[in-house]
């Protein structure tokens, strides 16, 4: 049979458990009875329990089947994923909540991520599947979350902490508005394989692929040249042509940005800001990265007001104070010199030390 074109995604209505169909849009309030469990109460009095469980996002079909078995047993076969790659088991029967959690814990699942906690890290492909990564994605996430596991399974942070990881400047992990953003960075321009270019690459497209216009045709050579001053090492040219090798094992690594958020609660959404320009790709466990993140996190925990997101705290005390408190070195690399740099300059004589 021929495929149906344009039939669109499956209808979500078929995926909703009866309790949701009955109380759709009639939820009244929620509580978080314990870490990892949300209790939503409807106007009708009905209560829906969601049990949140971490996933590594990169999962096998057997993992999904395991999860299905649990959902069949405890949730009448209904469950969902969150926008942050966690699973939520949806229970209409309160009596099954604790048994489910016990089963989950017994099987080694991680329950948590609700309320004032760290949830899963939004992340990307890394060395598993992408062609321009400057670091791995899943591995770094695993290392960081192992280290910070206590803050996933408890709710003792000043506020929610949302992390994102992207393995290159394309920032598929949307780290640009995260409390803590982990970004893979190349630091050297592409190395050009002129032979390969001469063999297969359409030069105008290659030239056009560079976001900063750093690539010029070199007609004499039937190849291209890269203006290194303009290159910001994004790897877009490598996407266009495998002749533009961008990875560089000795110089690829990770930058840390902090203080972004997207919710409108209290303060407007804000971008994350770079506080560490480079940490090495010390695989398999990236100790420099996990340590740096833990240090920032602990500083926040020790100093923030209750309910204050990481960026809200830093904005309150001032970034200059954050650098003083954290001991992180401040350098010209952290000073913006791109299009919207001007608004970052301190146009005022009032500041801390």
């Amino acid at each position, binding site marked *: *049979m021929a*495929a*149906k*074109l*344009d*039939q*669109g*995604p*499956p209808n979500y209505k*078929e995926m909703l458990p009866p309790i*949701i169909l009955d109380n759709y*849009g009639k939820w009244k*309030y929620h509580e978080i009875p314990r870490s990892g469990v949300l209790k*939503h109460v409807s106007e009708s009095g009905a209560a829906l329990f*969601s049990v949140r469980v*971490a*996933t*590594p996002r990169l*999962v*096998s*079909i057997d993992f*999904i*089947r395991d999860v*299905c078995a649990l959902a*069949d047993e405890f949730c009448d*076969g*209904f*469950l*969902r*994923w969150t*926008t942050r790659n966690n699973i939520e088991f949806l229970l209409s029967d309160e009596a099954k909540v604790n048994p489910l959690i016990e089963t989950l814990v017994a099987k080694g699942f*991680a329950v948590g991520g609700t309320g004032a906690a760290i949830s899963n890290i*939004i992340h990307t492909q890394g*060395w598993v*599947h992408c062609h321009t990564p400057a670091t*791995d994605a899943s591995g770094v*996430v*695993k290392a960081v*979350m*192992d280290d910070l*596991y206590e803050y996933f399974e408890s709710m003792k942070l000043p506020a929610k902490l949302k992390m994102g990881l992207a393995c290159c400047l*394309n*920032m*598929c992990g949307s780290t*640009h*508005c995260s409390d803590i953003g982990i970004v893979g960075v190349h630091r050297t321009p592409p190395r050009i394989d002129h032979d390969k270019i001469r063999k297969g690459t359409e030069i105008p497209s290659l030239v*056009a692929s560079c*976001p900063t216009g750093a690539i010029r045709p070199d007609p004499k050579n039937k190849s291209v040249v890269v203006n290194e001053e303009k290159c910001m090492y994004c790897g877009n040219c490598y996407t266009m042509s*495998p002749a533009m090798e961008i990875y560089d*094992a000795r110089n*690829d690594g990770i930058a840390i940005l902090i203080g972004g958020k*997207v*919710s*409108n*609660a209290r*303060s407007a959404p804000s*971008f994350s800001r770079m506080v560490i320009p480079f940490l090495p790709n010390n*695989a*398999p466990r990236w100790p420099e990265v996990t340590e740096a993140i833990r240090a920032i996190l602990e500083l926040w925990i020790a100093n923030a007001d209750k309910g204050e997101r990481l960026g809200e705290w830093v904005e309150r005390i001032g970034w200059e104070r954050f650098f003083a408190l954290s001991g992180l070195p401040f350098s010209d690399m952290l000073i913006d010199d*791109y299009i919207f740099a001007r608004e970052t300059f301190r146009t005022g004589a009032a500041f801390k030390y």
Partner: protein
Amino acid sequence: MTEKKTPLLDELEKGKWPSFVTEIKRAAVKSAASAELLQVLERSYEERRGHWKHGGIVGVRGYGGGVIGRYVDEPETYPNIAEFHTVRINQPSGFFYNTKTLRTICDLWEKHGSGLTNMHGSTGDIILLGCKTEHIQPIFDDYSEAGFDLGGSGSCLRTTNCCVGPGRCEYACYDTLEACYNITNEFMDELHRPMWPYKSKIKFSGCANDCTGAIARSDISVIGTWRDTIRIDQDAVKEYAANKFPIQSQVCDKCPTGCLTYNNETQELAVIAEDCTRCHHCINLMPKAIQAGKEKGATILVGGKSTIVQSAFMSSVVIPFMKMDVEDDFEEFKDTVRRIWEWWDENGKTRERIGETIFRLGMGKFLREAEIPIVPQQVFRPRANPYVFWAQEDLDKSGTALDGTAL
């Protein structure tokens, strides 16, 4: 399956967080491709570099996207992943599933591919990770048969995405699940046939908490809100007070506009309606006592995207309040979005996201030409420079002779 060693990756099976390495190993039991992936990945961990190449056309008939082509850089060494493409399957609204659907996904993927998935991709798709070129059309045919469709890739509308909304959240100001479903179905051509300067994304969040991260991650961000005033249940306030919830310090003192006052004696909360910006903070902290107003809808913001080229942009307000009614089939939204895309398609340069086009050509021009009413809510503050462009035809040109004499 060959039993090669992966000492570095094995380190990532330790620790409490669930391990993706374990997952690849599980898939490797059944899939030669996944087994080779493990080897390549171990090598990446040793060498600290990736081994993948992008490229070429891998697609299904009639569609222009939904598949990402990937090739390992040493096909001779790793023949099973010489081609290792990703198929993006459009997820159901709100990532809701029944186990039957999930098992279908698994069964078909066991038949055709690596057995590895991402649940979900960062845009929202069900990511089927790794298959051969020759399998792509059959994969599509099978999934299509089972009721699935492809998501987006390339210069098209990307797979839309929404928060759990009315399915489980008391905060939802419009039906995110239905909006996402209905609107996605409306724009099938835009999703499957890339024809624009670059990609365009829509995300639907039911309230100002923006649990899809729409403002940062989508060209068109639909964020639930209300037009009237928050509603306060004073009895419930008293209950919070009885439970010693710190209303003054946690709620009132952190209200960004200072428009909430708590009377410690009467244990009542009052709001200055016109000062409230609907930031949602107080509702978040006292969901039992405070709720949104009655006149619900969404704020439409445009231009969000990540870093490449002109810097990351957040979406910014174009329509402060729009009804998002299922009964009207979301017509106003659809019309507006069509005008917005049309303007961008007309004016955008190749690889320019709409936020960048607006920035380059001017917000005023965009709003005028896309026929969107101009209101102060669109800006934090007005311009600081006096460089107003005056439409010359609107001016009185009757007295401007070269010599200054009146004409």
